[in-house]
């Protein structure tokens, strides 16, 4: 449970899955602003393969909730044009792995037009896309690719870990005048067929609220070690922190919530407080999120009691067989073991 999911005294909890929180956020923005529309594969009648557009077709009709052909270069490019003339498209790329067929429209077009035009032509566009593995769907349907998108300038990158944040970040994303890559993890989505991490189901206020970008959440406070993660990794870190707490190690868990902008201040402050850093990332290890966070901390010059460590996906394509995939993924047990080593090394 994140620190942000507190309940106001005058209302009762209303728990939602991330899928429902996303759909609610989009619906509220569509009611508020006629320029918001949704397009993508299977987002209309089906309500999205991952449920995050369910109900929108019925309420807003096929002109504003548009099923597309399997033509990602075409419809993401089209969304950039819609944005150029005043619409605010919310586009779905069903699996982030499919970026390969349409990355030009994303990083050479959506991400750069604002700059190329000297600010004349901003691109208010949300690209929502599913990420993550662990369910045996192999190497073209299981990647996270957080680092790939965060690496390329001109796009904001959002990775919610729970329904409360998903709603507030989606509303902020739709209102943002820039391309926002909204990366939702399949294991957190609340689709029964993908399993559901219970911690991702949180209280979600009914009003349309924003969560500002660039503000990490401290989900659990502790003085011995800072564990930084995002998306599904946050829940592994929280489970690990619980176990570590039982053996007397107080772990602080930081949920990044957005990669671009990155809240380096919170990471550095937490690491300065604890003197120890562990980054948990389901994306590939090298040249990515975990390296960036560790570099940011090291560059800040904070005093460390032990070398920083990371648990990430190894530099291999994601294998199909659970016998190969599961051991390669981050896990609470790996976090506990590594955190223990870091704390002992730094004593």
């Amino acid at each position: 449970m994140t620190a942000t999911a507190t309940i106001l005294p005058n209302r009762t909890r209303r728990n939602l899955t991330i899928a429902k929180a996303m759909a609610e956020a989009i619906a509220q923005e569509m009611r508020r602003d006629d320029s918001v529309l949704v397009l993508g594969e299977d987002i209309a009648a089906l309500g999205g393969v991952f449920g995050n557009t369910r109900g929108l077709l019925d309420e807003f009709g096929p002109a504003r909730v548009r099923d597309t052909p399997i033509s990602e270069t075409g419809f993401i490019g089209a969304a950039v044009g819609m944005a150029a003339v005043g619409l605010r498209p919310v586009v779905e790329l069903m699996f982030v792995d499919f970026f390969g067929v349409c990355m030009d429209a994303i990083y050479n077009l959506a991400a750069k037009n604002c700059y190329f035009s000297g600010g004349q032509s901003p691109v208010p566009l949300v690209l929502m896309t599913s990420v993550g593995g662990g369910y045996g769907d192999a190497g073209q349907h299981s990647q996270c690719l957080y680092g790939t998108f965060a690496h390329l300038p001109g796009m904001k990158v959002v990775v919610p870990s729970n329904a409360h944040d998903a709603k507030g970040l989606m509303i902020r994303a739709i209102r943002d005048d820039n391309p926002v890559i909204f990366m939702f993890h399949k294991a957190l989505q609340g689709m029964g067929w993908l399993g559901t991490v219970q911690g991702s189901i949180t209280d979600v206020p009914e009003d349309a609220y924003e969560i500002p970008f660039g503000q990490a959440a401290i989900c659990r406070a502790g003085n011995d070690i800072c564990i930084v993660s995002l998306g599904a990794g946050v829940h592994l870190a929280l489970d690990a922190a619980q176990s570590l707490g039982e053996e007397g190690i107080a772990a602080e868990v930081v949920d990044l919530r957005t990669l671009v902008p990155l809240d380096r201040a919170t990471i550095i402050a937490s690491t300065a407080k604890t003197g120890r850093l562990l980054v948990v990332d389901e994306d590939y290890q090298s040249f990515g999120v975990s390296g960036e966070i560790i570099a940011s901390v090291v560059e800040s010059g904070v005093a460390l009691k032990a070398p920083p460590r990371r648990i990430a996906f190894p530099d291999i394509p994601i294998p199909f067989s659970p016998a190969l995939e599961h051991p390669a993924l981050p896990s609470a047990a790996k976090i506990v073991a590594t955190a223990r080593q870091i704390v002992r090394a730094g004593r």
Partner: protein
Amino acid sequence: MRPSPKQWLWMYQTMVKSRIFEERIAAAYFEGKSPVFNMANGPIPGEMHLSNGQEPCAVGVCAHLDAGDFVTATHRPHHIAIAKGVDLDAMAAEIFGKATGLSGGRGGHMHIFDAAVNFCCSGIIAQGMGPAVGAATAFKLRNERRVAVSFIGEGAANQGAFHESLNLAAIWQAPVVIVIEDNAWGISVAKAQSTAVPQNDARAAAYGMPGHRVAGNDPEAIFAVAGAAIARARAGEGPSLIEIETHRLAGHFIGDAEGYRPKGEKEALTDPIPQLRAKLLGLGILDPTADRALTDEAEALVDRAISKARAAAYPVPEQAYEKVFA
């Protein structure tokens, strides 16, 4: 061009074998996924796209191919793999994620690779078309009489790779045949809603190549049209595009409730296997005894593959790190 009795029996038995394979895979897939259907659980995790109903496309085309010809298939690959002669035991083991699988468990159901018979497939729409054009061009450069065939779905005809590859195939006059399995649905989106023309064979004209449409999911018509296109490619006369009307009888993937399909639409579809059985019995090519024998043999092969796959060992975690590079 009509199938010989021998070809008919091969086509029929291969369709039966493919269907029995899909039925066994489906049964195994449901293990461990009840009462909550969680895709991650059971002996076969992940998405599972069955080809029930689409078998005529595989056999009508592959009847004209041998192991040296290059085939790329889709995320729904089993029927084509079986018709192309992919090792059934090793394919089953791959789908179960076992060390004895074609790829040692690295690829799974959407990434069936059997280099011995020049078969591969992919989970990315239209991705196989470029490789098919390239392989065909290589055969041409080396003066080999081999051809390449790329199977795609009708939804793939709206991808950039489709149009780029057709143009390349045409300007290079590659010995390639593009086969569209038109099952009318791209997950939940109907072809009529996604595609600007009613028939994708019309698009061949834009690339100066022959286009053909085969109606009725009919193995005989598929055999004839594919046979002519493949013979043409083999003779060095260039590429062709074929769109086959076929049926998706088992949903996009197992777990697809298909609420988007109009009532009665799926029920009105005909299963091609009983249809072909009746036809062959009528033609006197098959009799009930031979049918039983062919079916029993197919079933035995499938059951052997499935039980060997179940009994095989899982790879050890360290094997995940092997084969990233050659």
